[in-house]
């Protein structure tokens, strides 16, 4: 107890005179309508991580649900703290380091992040912070039911700094030159590459480093609580409006378009998945429906600022079809154990979405000036592919190295005994549900 108190007093002292001046009088430049929407959108994106927690948590076995919820909530805590301390600066400084790969330390501890602008910089910072929470959280579906918690925390912290921040900097943070994906004109409205391809490939790498769960594939029980997964899907869908329409950073026509196409693509993808199941198995499943819907949400993310509602039908139908083929046919053929299909849904869905943005983009959409292939601009496809490849390579390689390093130092794979008993009890000393009383 003594140790704790000393630590605390130290912390207190350290924070007491924080040298850093953070802002100023309320600026007249602030647009209240835009600020109102962005406050809401930011809250919505925060809610996506609990949503994801239930989407994932319902799909694992009963003995592991808490470990999934815990990992999601730990992302909400840990990533926030890292983000305000240093992550935001690395991703969004307008001055660059290491050849433009990273931003620099200008905004360390939010130094110089004020309350000015159409929407305040602080608001942009926290909106982006929510993205920095959910992106790592997405990955955990790949190694659910078998990753040790300490290794998880270390890996995720490093991943945020060394993978997420740079990719974010390249696409949205103003990187120029070799890493200037945004400068190139890559269409990634709300994070098809930065978020989904990025997390998806890291997830794939994770499955290879960690190996399979015991008994996979034949003897893994089905989802222990599908209603929880549906609840999570509902919250994700709801929160995703903040993610996509919020990425307009204003309550304008671009936000409205992003909102509309999010709804349309998601609906179309859910419908497509169901129709495929109906044709192939004669029955539609709830898990298929929500998986399709999430695939649609993923795919429309990069394209939400540049395609219209009719294009969104195409994006959604493609997402449902391609992700279905991947999850139901290609993954089993390869036989790796991506527990909750993070690569199949987010990786593949994100790649498809980034390509689709290059197909259906039209300058008839407010706030967008880029046309895609179908509107006469074939070059856009090339730009999109470049962004995808950069992300795949960087995230793939660095994630692999990080996994290996963290494994060597802390260990990442739960023991056979722990896996059998379940991570809830062995890693968190709790049971999700009581049997008695």
């Amino acid at each position, binding site marked *: 107890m003594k140790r704790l108190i000393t630590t605390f007093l130290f912390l207190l002292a350290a924070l007491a005179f924080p040298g850093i001046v953070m802002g100023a009088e309320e600026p007249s430049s602030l647009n209240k309508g835009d600020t109102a929407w962005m406050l809401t959108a930011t809250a919505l994106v925060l809610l996506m991580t609990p949503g994801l927690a239930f989407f994932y948590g319902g799909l694992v076995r009963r003995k592991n649900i808490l470990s999934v919820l815990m990992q999601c909530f730990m992302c909400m805590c840990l990533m926030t703290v890292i983000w305000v301390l240093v992550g935001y600066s690395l991703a969004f400084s307008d001055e660059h380091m290491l050849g433009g790969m990273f931003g620099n330390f200008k905004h360390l501890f939010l130094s110089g992040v004020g309350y000015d602008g159409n929407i305040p910089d602080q608001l942009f910072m926290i909106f982006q912070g929510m993205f920095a929470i959910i992106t790592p959280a997405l990955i955990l579906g790949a190694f659910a039911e078998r990753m040790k918690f300490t290794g998880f925390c270390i890996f995720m912290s490093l991943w945020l700094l060394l993978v997420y921040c740079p990719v974010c900097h390249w696409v949205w943070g103003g990187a120029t030159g070799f890493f200037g994906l945004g400068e190139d004109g890559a269409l990634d409205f709300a994070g098809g590459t930065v978020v989904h391809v990025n997390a998806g490939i890291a997830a794939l790498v994770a499955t290879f480093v960690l190996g399979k769960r015991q008994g996979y*594939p034949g003897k893994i029980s*089905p*989802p222990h609580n599908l209603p929880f997964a549906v609840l999570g899907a509902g919250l994700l869908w709801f929160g995703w409006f903040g993610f996509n329409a919020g990425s307009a950073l204003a309550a304008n026509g671009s936000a409205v378009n992003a909102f509309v196409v999010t709804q349309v693509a998601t609906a179309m993808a859910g419908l497509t998945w169901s129709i495929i*199941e109906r044709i192939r*198995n004669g*029955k539609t*499943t709830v*898990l*298929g429906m929500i*998986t399709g819907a999430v695939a649609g949400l993923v795919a429309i993310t990069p394209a939400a600022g540049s395609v219209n509602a009719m294009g969104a039908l195409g994006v959604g139908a493609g997402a449902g079809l391609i992700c*279905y083929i991947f*999850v*139901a*046919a290609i993954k*089993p053929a390869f036989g790796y154990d991506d527990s909750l*299909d993070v690569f199949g849904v987010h990786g593949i869905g994100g790649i498809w979405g980034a390509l689709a943005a290059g197909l259906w983009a039209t300058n008839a959409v407010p706030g967008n000036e880029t046309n895609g292939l179908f509107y006469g601009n074939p070059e856009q496809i090339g730009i999109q592919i470049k962004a995808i490849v950069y992300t795949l390579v960087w995230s793939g390689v660095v994630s692999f190295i990080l996994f290996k390093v963290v494994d060597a130092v802390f260990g990442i794979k739960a023991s056979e005994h722990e896996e059998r008993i379940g991570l809830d009890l062995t890693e968190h000393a709790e049971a999700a549900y009581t049997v008695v009383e």
Partner: protein
Amino acid sequence: MKYIVAIIQPDCLNAAMDELGKQGVDLVTVTEVMGHGRQKGEAQVYRGHKEAGRLLRKIKLEIAVNDDYVDKTISAITTATRTEQIGDGKIFVLPLEQCARIRTGEVGPVAIG
């Protein structure tokens, strides 16, 4: 004394308890179980992964009775739950050596009811 175990369809529980009550068999312990029998389970599909789905929800009744109640009990259960469709269930009769009521400490046949 006998210890009767019956596996029945979930939607027959109320009927079975009504019928048992009529025969004066009022005390029963009910458990939710899963059964694998002649009635085949429903196949399941999870993201393309197919499961045989061998188990179906059933209800298990456990009833301790004195010997003269055995037939009444069996026939009450049968009456209430027979639909002549596969999956109706089974009744098992096990010997029971002793019975004690915790509240009073009574033992033997008197403790059963």
